[in-house]
């Protein structure tokens, strides 16, 4: 499984990358904002999964989510929102915009494993 990990916090990327590694997922590409993530997505297809933060500079996660879902060639890419945004309205907004799943930070490797269906 190839994962694009998108978060503006280098600390969160380090934690989430360690969580993915503990699940046996080692092919991980990182991006610090939505714009960088879109560039890395186009350059590194096929990507199986995007783990996507919401609040980021330059381009936020919900904007990238809508951009990716507007293009047919990325329909097979699973997207899990991984964010501190915890309100139901945000969850509904993300799922309606095409996110496959939603994880509220902080989350455990077990919760990630469950959302990944592993």
């Amino acid at each position: 499984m190839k994962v694009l990990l998108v978060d503006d916090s280098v600390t969160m990327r380090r934690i989430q990358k360690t969580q993915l590694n503990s699940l046996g997922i080692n092919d991980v590409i990182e991006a610090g904002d939505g714009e960088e993530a879109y560039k890395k997505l186009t350059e590194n297809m096929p990507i199986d999964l995007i783990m996507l933060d919401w609040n980021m500079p330059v381009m936020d996660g919900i904007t990238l989510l809508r951009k990716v879902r507007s293009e047919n060639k990325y329909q097979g890419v699973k997207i899990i929102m991984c964010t501190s945004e915890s309100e139901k309205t945000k969850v509904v907004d993300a799922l309606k915009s095409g996110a496959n799943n939603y994880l509220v930070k902080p989350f455990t490797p077990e919760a990630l494993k469950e959302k990944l269906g592993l």
Partner: protein
Amino acid sequence: MDVSYINPFISATMDCFKKMVFVDVTPKNPSLKNEPYPTYDISGVIGLSGDAQGSISLSFPQDVAIKVISSMLSAQINDKSPELVDGIGEIANIVAGNAKRGLSKFNLSISLPNVILGKNHAIGSQTGTPTIIVPFSSSLGFFSMEVTLKTK
């Protein structure tokens, strides 16, 4: 004065530290911030806007901040590590984001984190709006949360 809005921030801080830093933190009695202001070495600050406006900050002595982020990463960091500043900002972000769930009546939006560094700095706030301080104790040391929220 109704300051019950502080409770979701306290709960979110306890939950964040338990799940991310792997340590239990204990809130002490909240109090209104009065002069002389308490001082800190590193603070993560999140702006709050919407039907109420204000900010939340989590402030630490440097040695406690280093222990917190080292525990979070399960790896020792030092005062020069980029994860120190970034991690404190992210903890503030996660606390603010999680607290919003209990404050939905205010329809809050949260800013990106800002981190203040400097020995013995104080956090200022808007005149006329009360700031609530909540000290926390933990096995890693003491830290404080300050919340200023102007409600209608």
